[in-house]
């Protein structure tokens, strides 16, 4: 009550209805800060001081959280829930399952980690480690990692600035997948290995009726798929603290992309989901996907023969002999320092390295394991598509150029927006990439 009295006391003049009152309205509207400040003061006075720190909980507690978007998704839910339930009963622990939609996952996790609300094990896309690790809440898992028998490449995907924060759950890459039936129909007998051959192949596919030759990402969400192409053209994208986007190679890559776009070799408004849907109908020659995309695509396909027609294609290179570019892709499990972190570490280790578990995980979701033993399991080793993928594409895959930065998501968005501007004719490749470089440099300096 006192607050309102104070406010009343401050109000000048009488509450005479009429012009005077109204003239003051705008001012009052703008002067609301005074009242709000009073409210805020009152509140902050009675609220305990903010930000409960991490690491305060009992590390040996047998209750911990497990955050994972896979826990709610239709396809993966039963599998992951079973892993959780089995571990709960086997080890007599209690796991609090937490889940957010994939697209909002990083945001939610950041917010909640910041508020000290996340405990236990956390599933992460390997691209997100750079955003979360600097918050200082994650546990160094080197000891557990040493016990897991992970492959070197997989381990690398869980490291940030040399520290092993993540145990790799699945490691693969994003590369090109082709529809060999369509390629045959277009008279393409050999997989294109150079950009030149690739473009020829696309033009041949274009001659078929109603085909999108290359369902490359043109929506912001996945336009970061252009990074491997920029690298293919010879751009390093970033060297230390210097952004090299805007150099000749990257501009050339964007100009090439734009040409494909203008000639109808790639289509507007495509993201990964669209590409899969179109591919599933046999309307796409090539598209970019992670190895797991095969399952998602086939699920939508009406023609069961499509599964056999899908072949991994190493990304064409500028000059034959170059190493094909691919983007590393995968999931890791990290552990938050604090309540139940010991038990959570054991859970993470088991989930990612127990051979029976990871082999079953692969069989049901097509997510390749990360341990030598897991990869050697017959269920995995006998899957020709995955094996071929691992050997031909993942072998030369590299992490995203900006993953180590907290601003990764925003940087990728900047590039995507600028490339999009070029595609829709809003600016030249040179101007757009220079603008991107300036913007990214600005972001990195913050």
């Amino acid at each position, binding site marked *: *009550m006192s607050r*309102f009295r104070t406010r009343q006391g401050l109000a000048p003049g009488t509450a005479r*209805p009429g012009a005077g009152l*109204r003239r003051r*309205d*705008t001012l009052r*509207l*703008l002067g609301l*800060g005074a*009242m*709000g*400040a009073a*409210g*805020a003061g*009152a*509140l*902050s006075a009675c609220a305990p001081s903010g930000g409960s720190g991490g690491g305060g909980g009992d590390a040996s507690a047998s209750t911990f959280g497990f955050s994972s978007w896979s826990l709610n998704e239709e396809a993966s839910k039963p599998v992951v829930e079973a892993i959780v339930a089995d571990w709960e009963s086997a080890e007599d622990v209690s796991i609090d399952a937490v889940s957010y939609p994939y697209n909002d996952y990083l*945001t939610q996790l*950041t*917010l909640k980690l*910041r508020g000290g609300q996340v405990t236990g094990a956390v599933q992460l896309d390997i691209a997100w480690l750079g*955003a*979360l690790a*600097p*918050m*200082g809440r994650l546990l160094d898992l080197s000891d557990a990692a040493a016990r897991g028998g992970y492959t070197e490449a997989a381990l690398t995907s869980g490291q940030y600035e040399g520290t092993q924060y993540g145990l790799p759950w699945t490691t693969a890459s994003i590369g090109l997948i082709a529809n060999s039936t369509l390629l045959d129909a277009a008279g393409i007998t050999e997989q294109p290995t150079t950009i030149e051959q690739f473009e020829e192949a696309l033009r041949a596919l274009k001659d078929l009726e109603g085909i*999108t030759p290359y369902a490359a990402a*043109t*929506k*912001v*969400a996945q336009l970061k798929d252009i990074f491997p192409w920029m690298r293919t053209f010879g751009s390093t994208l970033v060297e230390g603290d210097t952004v090299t986007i805007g150099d000749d190679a990257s501009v050339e890559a964007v100009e090439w992309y734009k040409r494909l776009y203008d000639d109808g070799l790639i*289509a*507007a*408004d*495509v993201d990964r989901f*669209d590409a899969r*849907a*179109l591919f599933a109908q046999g309307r796409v020659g090539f598209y970019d996907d992670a190895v797991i995309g095969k399952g998602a695509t086939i699920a939508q396909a009406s023609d069961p023969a499509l599964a056999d027609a899908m072949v991994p294609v190493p990304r064409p290179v500028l000059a034959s002999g170059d190493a094909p570019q691919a983007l590393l892709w995968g999931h890791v499990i990290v552990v938050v320092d604090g309540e139940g972190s010991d038990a959570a570490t054991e859970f993470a280790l088991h989930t990612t390295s127990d051979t029976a578990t990871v082999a079953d995980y692969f069989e049901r979701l097509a997510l390749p394991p990360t341990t030598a033993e897991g990869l050697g399991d017959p269920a995995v080793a006998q899957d020709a598509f995955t094996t071929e993928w691992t050997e031909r594409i993942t072998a030369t895959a590299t992490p995203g150029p900006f993953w180590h930065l*907290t*601003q990764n*998501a*925003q940087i990728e*968005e900047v590039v*995507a*927006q*600028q490339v*999009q*501007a070029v*595609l*829709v004719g*809003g*600016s030249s490749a040179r101007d757009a990439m220079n603008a991107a470089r300036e913007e990214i440099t600005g*972001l990195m300096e*913050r």
Partner: protein
Amino acid sequence: MTPLIGAARPRRGERLSNTAFALLLTLPGMALFAAIVCYPLIASLVTGFFEQSLVLPGRSFVGLSNYREALQGDFWPVLRQTAVFTLGATAIPFVLGFALALALNSGIRGSGFLRGLFLFPWVIPGVVVSFLWMWIFNANYGVLNGVLTRLGLIEESVGWLGEPGTAMLAVIVTKSWASFPWIMVMMLAALQTVPRELHEAAAVDGSGAIRRFFTVTWPGVRGVAAIAILLEFIWNFQHFDTIYVLTGGGPAGSTETFAVAVYREAFHGFDLGRATALGGLWMVLLLGLVGLYLRMFERETDR
């Protein structure tokens, strides 16, 4: 217009003065506002003067530099796009909702059933609405392209959400679809307060339908229309879901509004200082606009 009498007159035998009683009535609401809006608002506005990250601990005072930076760069294009979106997504549902209300109020048969049916878009969860329209607008297998192709109106599929020219339109259409039922309900309510006798009297005087609309109907519903437009305007300025799901602000930033920009600064760039500075500018802007609007509106109803 209401005379300032009635319950406001002090009465003997009650402990609280009328003013105190009136303030007591507002107390629960004000407490909620203080906790849910004011405190976070003040905390946010303060953040605008600091360099503060969402992910890194600590912050340092930087004065107005966040505001300066926010005003540079994309501020003006974003302002323009916000204006286009807000005006479009306010005007279109208003026209549609009002037209529908007029039609349903004209005593046509089955209006009760139709009213119920038209509520559908309003109660489908907002994010689902966005996904539904994303599905409809899809360049490669969307039903809109399918229908237009079949009707021979277009030859090649249009990337509705992929072209700057059509993306904003698509976003506005989607938002309009979700909110026109709300306007319809409000305006139906308003229309029912216009006494039928006035209409009949005007008709006897020989006024045509259009004339009657302007002399009888519109004055009767103007008050509700004004507040419905105001709220819709504020909400649209604030609106985020539809744009974020449909275009993410693209293509090439052509549908980026303040709401999207703030979200991106805060949750993708983790730059709370910049995000709140932008939010502060937005608030000043909106308060100014709404203040103007209220004054205009009050002057009008005073007549």
